[in-house]
């Protein structure tokens, strides 16, 4: 009889588990990004009371794994009120550097501080820094809401804060579903929601736009701009260089664990040998134009047929004047601004070449 009672109890428990799992399938992802949530999320009361409190300073950061040096004497600063892009090819050491900054990996040498303090020593870590290092970081069998409520509980935040950030990130309808069923974009939003729970002053984001649809990317861009405008510090790594060119104020480009360029986006792209301003010229007689411009101009083919060329050196006015003097017809003359993608590719390929030569 006792055995039978035990089996009945176990059967009831299994039925309850199945019911809990099956009952969470009715919600659907709403789709469009809720732009009204941006201001609420970015307007945290903890934002920039003093500039120094939000400054990220990395000095000589180095990490060795066995015989491999993943990060090699990396130094940079990310300032409050600015969005700093952290760029590098796969395996360049970006994620390792961010993990060291956030106390998740122990540096072999060097320091990384936020407001002059190591992350591990911050009194209220998620009240100072919000971080997304992998999409959501939630247990696949746990609901998004429970995931956030657990963080709230551990950090001493009111549990209701979880519902606030879920609403602001457009996840309310999916909040009670297991996170394992979320799309990549939804998991990114859940990660961002977790990062924003403590109304932090600093955001550290690793590829936060992965999996977001165009509306989501725009929502993220608005959020980060509003956050920086309030004085927040943002350090963001991304492979979407066109997006970073629009978004970032400063960039740090790393390759093979070392910083190969840093500064404002304009300064980095403008300092390049091949990635600076150039002019696209369409003319039936590029040879005559080249002769008129002389050695100061560098010509490179811009397409098949030979009529389209890139001219580096003289600006569009000088090219037009030279064409007039030489009697050369010009069918198109377009000035092309410095390009972060070109800068990235040139700087990272230079490092690869140096590495190969060594």
């Amino acid at each position, binding site marked *: 009889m006792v055995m039978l009672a035990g*089996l009945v109890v176990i059967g009831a428990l299994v039925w309850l588990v199945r019911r809990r799992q099956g009952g969470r399938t009715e919600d659907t992802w709403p789709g469009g990004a809720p732009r009204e949530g941006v201001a609420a999320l970015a307007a945290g009361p903890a934002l920039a009371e003093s500039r120094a409190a939000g400054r990220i300073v990395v000095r000589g950061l180095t990490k060795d794994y066995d015989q491999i040096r993943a990060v090699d004497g990396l130094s940079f600063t990310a300032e409050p009120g600015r969005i700093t892009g952290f760029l590098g090819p796969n395996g360049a050491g970006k994620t390792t550097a961010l993990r060291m900054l956030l106390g998740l990996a122990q540096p072999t040498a060097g320091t990384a501080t936020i407001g002059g303090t190591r992350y591990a020593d911050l009194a209220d870590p998620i009240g100072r820094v919000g971080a997304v290092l992998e999409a959501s970081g939630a247990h696949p069998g746990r609901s998004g809401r429970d995931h956030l409520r657990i963080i709230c509980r*551990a950090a001493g935040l009111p549990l209701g804060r979880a519902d606030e950030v879920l609403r602001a990130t457009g996840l309310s309808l999916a909040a009670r579903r297991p996170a394992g069923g979320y799309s990549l974009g939804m998991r990114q939003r859940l990660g961002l929601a977790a990062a924003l729970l403590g109304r932090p002053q600093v955001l550290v984001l690793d590829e936060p736009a992965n999996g977001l649809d165009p509306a989501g990317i725009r929502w993220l861009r608005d959020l980060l701009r509003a956050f920086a405008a309030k004085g927040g510090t943002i350090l963001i790594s991304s492979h979407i260089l066109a997006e970073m060119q629009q978004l970032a104020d400063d960039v740090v480009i790393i390759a093979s664990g070392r910083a190969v360029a840093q500064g404002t986006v304009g300064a980095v792209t403008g300092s390049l040998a091949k990635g600076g301003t150039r002019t696209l010229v369409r003319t039936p007689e590029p040879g005559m134009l080249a002769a008129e411009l002389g050695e100061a101009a560098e010509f490179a083919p811009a397409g098949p047929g030979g009529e389209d060329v890139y001219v580096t050196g003289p600006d569009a006015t000088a090219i037009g004047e030279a064409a007039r003097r030489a009697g050369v017809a010009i069918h198109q003359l377009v000035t092309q601004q410095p390009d972060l993608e070109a800068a990235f590719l040139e700087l990272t390929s230079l490092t690869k070449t140096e590495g190969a030569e060594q």
Partner: protein
Amino acid sequence: MKPAIMRRLVAAELMKVRTTASWWYYLAGFGLLAAGALTNNWFSHHYQLHPQADLPDRAQALAAAAQARTPSGTAAIAASMITSGDFLTALFAILLGVHIAANEFAQRTATVTFLTVPRRGRVVAAKVAAAACAGAVFWLAATLLNGIGTGVFLRTEHLSGALTGVTAARSAGMALLVYVLSAVAGVGLGALIRSQLAAVITAIAAYAGGFALIELVSHLVYDLARQGWVLGLPVAAPPLADIVMTSSGSAFPHAPPPWAGAAVMAGYALALAAAGTAAIRARDVS
């Protein structure tokens, strides 16, 4: 460390346990094993009280049955039944402890956990406390099931009073310690071994295999040395330490007293928790 911080960290760890389905699976498996152990114990004691007619040493069995119906014999039956199979079901407390620690790495939730609370020693301490609470819940479930079963058995066999006696209460109290220490040892093991699967296999192998190995070694040594105390050494194996702790009399020939079993289990729990904490502190979270 401020008590308020620890309270909220333990509450967060308990939320982690109860907000996934795994907890229910552990409890269901535990319930099944507990019910099986109680049933086995029921029949064992029934045949102790009613020896079969074809037993070769029936006279001895009848004497044992008569002794079992005395107050001390009934108290021993009650103590045995209320802790039915605890040495087996405690394995579920160990496995749940392993789950609480190692699942963070298996499901890659450790990053968020240590971003929220970067002081890792506090996190492990909270996991230990949460596992101890979960172990106590296992004990409560087992003791309720066994208590009901024992009450019905004693009534059926026309034996009374033993369930509320000191002997049964002491065994049940020791069983609580078994579950709590087992769960704490599980957390230590799960923290020490990063792979959850490897930690689970190690726990099961050490629990079952360690018992067999130490039994074998102690008997081999006894054959050489002929010293009685050697036969008490198997208490170093957790399942036998559990039995020694909860047994109302001598659990096996030359068995040490219950406190020795408790000391063994406490030693395992403390050593594994300390080693697990050190490992978690030193480990890069990726």
